């Protein structure tokens, strides 16, 4: 048994490919910023503050929590970064305060996500 036996080699996971131990990740706080979904949108809801009664139905209808009631200003705030444009809020608004406008009509909101989700 003079010959030396082979070893098991070494394993080096490249830093940029490392995954968390046991695939456990910290929970997000307010939004999952690694997963913006504004690029799902074909239309965006545009609100009319005059017609809006702050009934909060849009807030309670959004699967993506994209309507927030700002108590101090007494205004509804739309979350542009995550709205997928499903139009549930527009469909549910009892006063017709929301309208669907084509996303391409707006110059803003251009993002270049690295990973297309």
């Amino acid at each position: 048994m003079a010959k030396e036996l082979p070893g098991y080699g070494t394993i080096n996971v490249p830093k940029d490919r490392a995954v968390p131990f046991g695939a456990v990740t910290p929970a997000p706080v307010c939004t999952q910023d690694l997963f913006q979904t504004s690029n799902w949108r074909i239309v965006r809801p545009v609100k009319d503050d005059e017609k809006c009664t702050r009934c909060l139905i849009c807030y309670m209808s959004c699967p993506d929590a994209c309507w927030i009631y700002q108590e101090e200003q007494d205004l509804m705030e739309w979350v542009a970064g995550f709205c997928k444009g499903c139009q549930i809020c527009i469909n549910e608004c009892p006063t017709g305060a929301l309208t669907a406008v084509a996303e391409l009509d707006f110059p803003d909101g251009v993002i270049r996500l690295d990973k297309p989700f």
Partner: protein
Amino acid sequence: MAKVHEITVWTRGVTMDKEGRDVINIFAKAAQMDGKHAQAFDNYEDLPDRVLVTVRKYVRLSDEEIEHKYIYHNENPEVVVIVEPTIVKGIDILRGMKKGGTLIINTNRSIDDMLKFIPNADLLATVATVDADGITGVRTVDFSGSEGGVDTSGIGKGVAAPICGAMARVTGWIKKENLAEIVGDVSGMERGYSEVKIKKLG
């Protein structure tokens, strides 16, 4: 290794997924009718698709047998096809493209309007638009052909037909006559072929 042309089709989940799938399947079939070697497949990571999420479909095309078939992505697409135009706002659709590429968009908006949303348009030699929704207005939804199944509702009955017509004209890689044998909506395909607007960039 044989030269492989990569075509990436961007569409949206569920509502336009079948149309995107039709585009790649029709294109590959038409190429195969000319004896070319072609591979058409969904991006596996994009499955299962969700309503309105951006999803990718790929064609790989070669004059010779494609040697390496097992890839997940088209890394360097020469041609990018956009089935739903809003996608240009949210994704770097030209990612991996080498200079001199081609972009084809299904829209009734002007080419210059669309280019405003594409900061890296200098990669492009050709941009084309076709108003496929205006031509047919049909978007088939059928899950039977997803996940490697076979579409029971046929192929090329909606916006995919004019888009493929436009692709034949712009790329020159497939023949209109072959398309006519494949698609359900032949007149839509022919209108796409003749009505596509093409702009050559400096």
